[in-house]
């Protein structure tokens, strides 16, 4: 803890902000343009990649993460990590719902008693 006031804070040069701003505008246009073409299965990863770059720019420059102390970074990264755990372990369930253990499936001809959720009833008749 230094005894100085906030004079000691690093003031980010305007050029960083301006360049980031221009880059963000460019990337927004880019992602819209890319979306007009069909890359099949790659559509989502490409869109997410661009979004990730944009997000990192906002995080690093606008939110000043680049000039932050270590712990803030750890905090933010760990929250993303926990988000990753959240999604990964749920997908471990959702993605394997239809499968039955092969050891049981073969000799006894078992199928999972759980109805896969994708075979839900039609909503059109519901309304």
């Amino acid at each position, binding site marked *: 803890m230094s005894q100085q006031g906030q004079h000691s804070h690093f003031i980010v040069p305007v050029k960083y902000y301006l360049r980031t701003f221009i880059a963000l505008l460019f990337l927004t246009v880019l992602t819209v343009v890319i979306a007009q073409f069909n890359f099949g299965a790659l559509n989502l990863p490409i869109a997410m990649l661009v979004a990730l770059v944009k997000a990192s720019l906002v995080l690093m420059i606008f939110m000043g993460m680049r000039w932050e102390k270590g*712990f803030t970074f750890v905090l933010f990264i*760990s*929250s993303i990590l*926990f988000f990753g*755990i*959240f999604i990964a*372990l*749920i997908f*471990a*369930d*959702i*993605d*394997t*719902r239809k*499968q*039955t*253990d092969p050891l049981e499936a073969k000799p006894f001809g078992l199928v*999972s008693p*759980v109805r896969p*959720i*994708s075979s*839900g*009833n039609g*909503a059109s008749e*519901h309304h």
Partner: protein
Amino acid sequence: MSNEHGNYLTNPKGIWSWLTTVDHKRIGLMYLLFVAISFALGGIFAMLLRLELFFPGQQFFTAKEYNQLFTLHGAVMVFLFIIPSIPATLGNFFLPIMIGAKDVAFPKLNLASLYIYVFGAIFCLASIFLGAVDTGWTFYTPYSTTTDTSVVTMTMGAFILGFSSILTGVNFIVTIHKMRTKGMGWFRMPLFVWSLYATAVIQVLATPVLGITLFLLILETTVGVGIFDPVLGGDPVLFQHFFWFYSHPAVYIMILPAMGIMSELVTTFCKRNIFGYRFVAYSSIAIAIIAFLVWGHHLFVSGQSDYAAMIFSLLTFLVGIPSGIKVFNWMATMYQGSIELKTPFLYFLSFIFLFSIGGFTGIMLASLSLDVYFHDTYFVVAHFHYVMMGGTVIAFLGGLHYWWPKMFGKMYSEFWARIACLFIFVGFNMVFFTQFLLGAKGMPRRYYNYLDQFQPLHAFSTVGTWVLGAGFFIMLFYMLHSLFRGQRAPQNPWGGLTLEWQTSTPPSVHNFDETPIVTGGPYDYGKEDAHV
């Protein structure tokens, strides 16, 4: 013991000065009051439940009323009592003092979270009169979206309470990072502070997920979102995933601070440095992290896939490691210590006994094959009461007795305190050990009726609640007596070394008359010039 500003209880005076206070000590005490009331309310619900179960068949309540009662018991105990219990009361009071700070980092935010708590509690209590919820405290879909009881009011209450918890967590994290006094390095912090830190991390990372889940549930019951509705192609099990992503870490929000108190008690009453300080500290953090990896063990029979169940089962076993480290280290700390069997230490011993049973049965329930059999039986009920009540509540009581003299400047009757502790320990085991037997014999939970052959065990369990209740009544009386007629407490009745014992009793408004400078570890018993 010169008090520059006078002690915090009487300066300034007047009810208004309490309601608008930003002093963490007063906020802690107000929390204590509300939490105690909630505990009494939840306890009354529990005793009514047990009364109904004395004999098979309908006694006092219909099936629906019974469902409402156990839901209210669960919801009140979880959301209103046990989550804020230790962090918001003892934590709020002692965290800043233990690290030598004048207050938490954001005192106004602290007061705000108290009022948010009260606001949320009003919602929860209102829901009792608007058609009490009968879904169980877990609000599982699709029942919760179709029942005619006041699910929206109750979940709204829990949603609001969640923010109270989050803000407390934010406050504690920043306080621990930024407010430590000179010389108070990370590894000189009392272990209670470490456990509160781990708790705060879970509060901040997990509670928002509960918030959004309940928000989605409210949307689902009102305008619909469709994601939990199988008719539309949604998935009700997804609700359980979302719910337990918070609510499993939440049980570590409940138990971690309790473990922190245990570390304080064992060192003070054995006059020994903690065995393996860093291991105990890191194991708190390890529990906080593993907490997020295990939620699926609540879904073993909910239609979760086999593979996910296996992964979750494996990960759940990991929790045993840091918990075991803690218990073994406390045991090792006792070795060759000069043990004083004062009331707080009796609670410590009770904790070790009860928490170990709770922990071992937890390992049983984590095993996939066993859980399929035990799931939704009294075995599970007994398990989590051993951890939550035998662990957290017992530790809370231990902490309360340990710090009571410091908080109020009055001693309580040691004799009656020991009697009450005995009643609570015996009563608790009567209630819940019986339920292990009931569960193993196949008694399902959440039923108001049962087969005749279970009657003796059920009756025994019910009688246990009376013993337990008597213990709490004795406690109520000697605590009130202590408040009004108690002997003046000395500054350091137990000979503790942590900072809260170095300041006046009760502490002055700004905690310390002189900002303390720390020169050694928190538990340097036996060293000549320990501390300050």
